[in-house]
């Protein structure tokens, strides 16, 4: 990594943008800047000083040491790293979206509100739900919205003191238990069976009076469709518990099955996964939440969707205007200040508009097709196994295990990952789900070409060959990346940990 830190660049007195001086007439009228002395900043912030060209060069060079879908396959399991169509980039970046103030008069943003209104409707149809709310900024944020809705459900029904537990499969994303906890629930884990489904016996023994709800993704993180899903829904509903759908894996069934039809009450969607919005190196995302129109309190006319947090875009028949409606009296409230993360939502809008139902279904088919193609090619490759769900087809992803390699010769999933980097691939998600040892969780999505899948398989085979002939070599990987293997232990060591340049300087000065 040859690019210096930005603090090491530039020169005294330089600037990257010319901020104009206040006009003479303004200065004359206003006089001096009057800041209460105890609040006046008395030294400039310690920012670097660079000209515009230096800033452009620096970040251009940094970008070249990053890797996205634009650079090659990024088959991160459960992350659904699709191609991000540039048509959506163009539209989402239009000044007629980016330059709108969230509080400006609704009559002046009718085009945008119409798009969002339509998106709400389309997502409801895609998920088989009744109402969608675009508010949450990410999948986990959507989960929080969902479990808060579950909480409100039991509150409105006066049973929250009793309904204290959320059940979550052991194969779940880490955000599920974390979200449940943020909503004040206790988390109860249910194990997976060998066929990849939830262990129904275990579930039956867990679900009871204190069960507030269950969070599950379907297909699971193993890429397997939960075959008992309707039974699970029935079981939960029998105990007046709600069923929450983690939409991270929607790309495996879209157009073939809908959470609403499976019996789910609430579902979140990752626009930045299933609907082609870019991940941006970790965000912004958008995690709309879709809800069944279930009656909660008949007398007061409260429905489940009334309980969800956030804003709704509604159409006012009287005025013919779209409007933004804030959370009502039964709502869980707000999860962020404004309507939602508009940019990714518009990407999603453009994606769905472009694909139509036919295209979305094709996307699912090809995501599934390519996954099973990959799985087939990886059958019986030395060093790897494909645990759970033997004989079953996968949906959007498949989890390999490098356990044989790890146990036999000490070459781990991480080593395999590094070996993939050297071949110009991003590595799979590793060590997840937790129920698979030395997991390599692979999701190509419909954006990947069969020939890249084949090359990926070839590389996995090559890694295995190299590993078995020289088990120490994989420990020297990666070699072709901008830096060699990173010292993560040092990065976290109390004596070395350096989360900012400020800390770096303080360490150099012996102040820490």
């Amino acid at each position: 990594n040859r690019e210096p830190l930005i603090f090491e660049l530039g020169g005294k007195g330089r600037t990257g943008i010319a901020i104009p001086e206040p006009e003479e007439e303004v200065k004359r009228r206003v006089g001096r800047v009057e800041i209460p002395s105890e609040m006046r900043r008395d030294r400039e912030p310690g920012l670097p000083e660079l000209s515009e060209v230096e800033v452009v060069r620096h970040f251009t060079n940094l970008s070249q040491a990053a890797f996205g879908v634009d650079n090659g396959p990024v088959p991160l399991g459960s992350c659904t790293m699709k191609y991000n169509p540039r048509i959506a980039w163009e539209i989402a970046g239009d000044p007629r979206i980016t330059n709108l103030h969230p509080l400006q008069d609704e009559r002046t943003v009718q085009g945008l509100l119409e798009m969002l209104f339509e998106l709400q409707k389309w997502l409801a149809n895609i998920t088989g739900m009744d109402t969608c709310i675009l508010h949450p900024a990410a999948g986990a944020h959507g989960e929080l919205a969902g479990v808060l809705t579950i909480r409100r459900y039991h509150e409105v029904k006066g049973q929250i003191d009793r309904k204290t537990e959320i059940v979550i499969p052991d194969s779940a994303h880490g955000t599920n238990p974390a979200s449940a906890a943020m909503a004040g629930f206790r988390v109860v884990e249910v194990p997976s069976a060998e066929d990849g489904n939830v262990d129904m016996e275990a579930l039956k023994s867990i679900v009871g009076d204190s069960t507030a709800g269950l969070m599950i993704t379907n297909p699971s993180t193993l890429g397997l469709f939960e075959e008992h899903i309707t039974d699970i829904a029935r079981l939960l509903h029998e105990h007046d518990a709600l069923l929450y759908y983690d939409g991270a894996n929607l790309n495996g069934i879209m157009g073939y099955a809908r959470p609403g039809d499976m019996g789910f009450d609430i579902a979140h969607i990752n626009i930045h996964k299933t609907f082609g919005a870019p991940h941006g190196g970790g965000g912004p995302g958008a995690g709309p939440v879709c809800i069944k129109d279930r009656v909660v309190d008949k007398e007061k006319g409260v429905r489940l969707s009334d309980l969800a947090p956030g804003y709704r875009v509604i159409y006012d028949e009287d005025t013919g205007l779209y409007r933004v409606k804030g959370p009502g009296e039964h709502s869980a409230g707000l999860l962020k200040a404004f309507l939602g993360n508009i940019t990714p939502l518009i990407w999603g809008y453009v994606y769905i508009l472009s694909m139509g139902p036919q295209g979305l279904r094709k996307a699912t088919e090809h995501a599934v097709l390519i996954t099973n193609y990959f799985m087939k090619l990886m059958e019986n490759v030395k060093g790897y196994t494909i645990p759970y769900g033997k004989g079953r087809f996968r949906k959007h992803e498949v989890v390999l295990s490098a356990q044989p390699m790890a146990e036999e010769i000490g070459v781990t999933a991480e080593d395999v990952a590094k070996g993939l980097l050297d071949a110009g691939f991003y590595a799979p998600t590793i060590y997840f789900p937790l129920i698979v040892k030395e997991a390599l969780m692979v999701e190509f999505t419909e954006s990947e070409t069969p020939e890249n899948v084949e090359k990926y398989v070839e590389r996995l085979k090559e890694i295995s060959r190299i590993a078995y002939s020289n088990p120490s070599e994989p420990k020297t990987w990666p070699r072709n990346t901008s830096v060699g293997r990173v010292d993560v232990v040092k990065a976290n060591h109390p004596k070395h940990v350096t989360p900012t340049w400020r800390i770096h300087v303080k360490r150099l000065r012996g102040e820490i």
Partner: protein
Amino acid sequence: MIETKSHPWIPSLTEESVKKMLEVIGVGSVSELFKDIPSEILLGEDSWNKLEIGLGRPLSEIEVKELVEEKLSRNKVFNPPPFMGGGVYPHYVPPVVRYIISRGEFLTAYTPYQAEISQGLMQALFEYQSMMAELLEMDIVNASMYDWASSIAEAALMAFRVRKGRRKILLPGNMNPLHRRVVETYVKPQGLMIETIPFDRELGTVDAEAVKSMVDGDTAAVYVQYPNFFGIIEDNVKAIGEIAHEKGALFITGVYPVALGLLKPPGELGADIAVGDGQSLGLGMNYGGPHLGIFAVRYDMNLVRQMPGRIIGLTTTIDGSSKAFAMVWQAREQHIRREKATSNICTNEALMAVASAVYMALLGKTGLRRLAELVYYRAHYASSRMSDIGLTRVFKGEFFNEFPVSFNNIGVKYSAVHEKLLEHGIHGGLYIGSYYPELGEVALYAFTELHSVKAIDRLIETLKKAIEEVRGR
């Protein structure tokens, strides 16, 4: 209508590819791969295709552009931009920022879980953390939260963890009311309480005496926003922090970062946690999102261990040959700690953090002060011009870029004035009577570097005319 025999976004959607893959898999058709879906929930192609999803058919880019263009034409970009803030400000976004975050290597990357192939992204995020730390004079900044509001909420939850057993947090009455609502949403399920600190009705500032009486041993944290929702520069921030600390409560400050060009940073005012929104640092207003939640703490492991969000650290390669970046303190996060994590946050606003890093790099050491001064001058010019036409500020406290203007004394409804302004192509300030009914007909006007003298003069003339028109009715 476009064919679906092949599709630009699905490379394997060709006769040849499908045939080959099906053969290798050993099935006769794609539908066999879905046979484990119980038939009662399996959707037929026809019923799916009939659903109202998009226009019910695939569209070409050309059709999409045409259709969307019509919709975009119904959004109005005001020029000058709305004289409106309330937590979101129409600032200038340099094209360099837009250019850099459009580069596919950043745009289409995932969270940098594989460090070696993501060094450029990690360095950019590290530089965001570092430059933001300099603005705030705080030691540690995470790689972002969703927005200012959720940053306060997470800060509150964090304070309750750090000060375990305490059950109360104090929020000022002059903080952004939308932020307040978000904090409520996050805090209530934990069975925790919020108390409101009153503000001085004349000055608009937090009532420091009230804080003294309210903070006690059950108080986990005290929050102050500066400039506050009324644009007033709270002048007793440090004192309030000291009161909080005396009782063992954490001190959380929220800032509009542009103001830090003139105002003391949280680090100098004793903040344990500093939050704010990076929207004003190189992001569009985006109709409210994506924005950028700033979250910073002092370097105190008691705080760090409870901090939410991703953090990139500087380290070296294992062989020590090169500097390198890695995620640090991951054990706090949900993918490791699950229900015991410090937050459920996973996807954050990384690309916005990069944007803001580019912006801060462009500004440099003196740019922020220059920007803050310009904004200050423009707002004060506007305030002065407003008083020329009989419009007065509601509070006497010194303000930065934003101030509530009273229409009470001139006897008009603000909504009527707003209407007239709109007719003349101007979007005025934010009516805040709904948040503060006691203030009456009051609108919060905000100014930035994008409001030129000419634009302000036009606003004043138009306001004058609008008021006359309203009165004339």
